[in-house]
């Protein structure tokens, strides 16, 4: 039986009238990289805050390493928030010393490990620079270094790569996954490509509950082979209905003037598309089915749900 790092059963959390989590259930195997995917406001950050004992659940059960979330568990957990937490008045190394002490890292270990991690994440030469002088990408890397400093058994990453470019993102993930061997990683993101690349398992969340979960491969397996993204000049319901009626059309999702259709053979579908909706097509892009398509199938089926 797989050992679980996180187990949530029927968790509910309200902020006044708004329901952030609504019957949220999830199991995260120990040592896995698990992606929580959903649109903004779907409850990802709230769930992470609960795991870090920073928010209580109104009802339901949450277990982290078999226990209810508690401050005492936080020595074994590190959280990277959407926002930077580094104090701009400190230097990079001061910030790491400060954070390390709060997590009980011995002084000698702090120096050695801090230096190693800074080098690994390309921040070694900036160790004595003020945090305020770092670029956005460097600050995000510093957040990850800070999180890894006390050798956590679980990393809670809340959109850790928001606002950084592709190269920075690639460096960050390469080093993070290399340095976090055996650590359970829970990644909350709305970047489906990122989750597809790094996660062993993912769960799609919508309106505060898990819609579906599994490995990216399993979620994509049920899809048709190809995905056709159609830019429309005429996005009326009639046009979309005509596209849906084309033989060979699998799942169809609409987001304003874009329609995504899955199909087994785009080469026969596309000519039929131009016949079915003449003058209504602005652009057509064909791609192999991705996690984004799986997301569209499960979460945004036929225009439901918000932007991922």
């Amino acid at each position: 039986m797989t050992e679980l790092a996180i187990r949530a059963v029927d968790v509910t959390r309200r902020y006044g009238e708004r329901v952030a989590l609504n019957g949220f259930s999830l199991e995260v195997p120990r040592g896995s990289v698990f992606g929580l995917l959903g649109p903004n406001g779907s409850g990802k950050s709230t769930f992470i805050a609960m795991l870090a004992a920073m928010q209580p659940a109104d009802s339901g059960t949450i277990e982290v390493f078999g226990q209810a979330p508690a401050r005492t568990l936080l020595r074994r957990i590190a959280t990277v928030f959407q926002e930077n937490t580094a104090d701009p008045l400190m230097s990079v190394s001061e910030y790491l010393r400060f954070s390390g002490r709060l997590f009980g890292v011995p002084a000698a270990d702090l120096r050695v490990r801090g230096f190693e991690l800074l080098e690994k994440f390309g921040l070694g030469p900036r160790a004595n620079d003020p945090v305020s002088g770092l670029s956005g990408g460097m600050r995000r890397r510093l957040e990850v270094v800070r999180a890894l400093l006390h050798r956590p058994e679980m990393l809670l990453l809340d959109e850790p790569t928001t606002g950084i470019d592709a190269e920075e993102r690639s460096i960050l993930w390469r080093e993070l996954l290399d340095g976090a061997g055996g650590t359970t990683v829970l990644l909350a993101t709305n970047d489906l490509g990122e989750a597809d690349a790094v996660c062993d398992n993912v769960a799609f969340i919508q309106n505060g509950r898990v819609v579906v979960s599994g490995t990216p491969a399993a979620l994509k397996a049920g899809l048709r082979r190809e995905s056709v993204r159609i830019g429309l000049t005429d996005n009326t319901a009639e046009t979309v209905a005509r596209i849906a009626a084309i033989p060979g059309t699998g799942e169809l999702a609409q987001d304003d003037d874009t329609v995504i259709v899955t199909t087994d053979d785009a080469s026969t579908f596309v000519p039929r598309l131009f016949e079915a909706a003449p003058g209504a097509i602005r652009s057509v892009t064909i791609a192999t089915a991705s996690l984004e398509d799986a997301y569209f199938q499960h979460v945004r089926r036929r225009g439901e749900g918000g932007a991922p």
Partner: protein
Amino acid sequence: MNAAMTLARRDLMAVVRSRSQLYSSMLTPLLFLVFLGNGVSHGLQPANLEAGNFTAYLVAGTVVMTSVFSSTFSSASYYRDRDSGLLRLLLSTPHAPRTLLLGKSLAALVIGIVQALVVLLAAAPFVDSEWQYGFAAGMGIALAAVVLVNLMLTGLAQALASRIQSMQGFHLLMNLALFPLLFFSGAFFPIDGLPTWLRVLAFINPLTYAVDALELAAYAAGDDGFIGLGIDFVVLGALAVAVYAAGLARMPKVTWSGE
């Protein structure tokens, strides 16, 4: 306790690195003492004060005023920490909010005490203070009063900061609450000659007891007309413990996306 000390060290470092805040918080009370003290002493020649020396009289009040401003500015660091994201990190550590609050308040306490003592020591050579119990004992009494008043004001500022979402609102409320308390504490004018209703207000004002203890330590030549050190320290001690405990009771709130 290590976590509290780590946090206190960091807050002290932040103040030392904010040079403008550091210098202005030290210089403002000294300038106040020099200009207002000399201005009133020579311009109005207050008859109720010994030899008309308002500067010497003003030292105790200025020390208390320094503590008021210091506690306000120090507690405003919650808002800076919240806005910079640091408060979120603090809440994700294994330490209880009370430990974190203790660390931050220790820093505020040290800053307030140092600033108050700088005013007291800087003014000592230039004003005709009596030090009726001797300089060493007088400084000991003054230090005790400064510690207690800073403990009380830090607790008050902390309690308010945890309940008020905006820094502007916090400053407004602190000014609204503390300026009247300063005025009717004997900090700027003796309370003896005030109308009865103002004297009643002065006696229920905790700052009155801090000013009284400081006046007795440094300025007064005798105990006549003063409340007395015994009562001063009983009132200040009780309030300092109660208000500081209230200040440690609640952590400022961090909001979550979607909340």
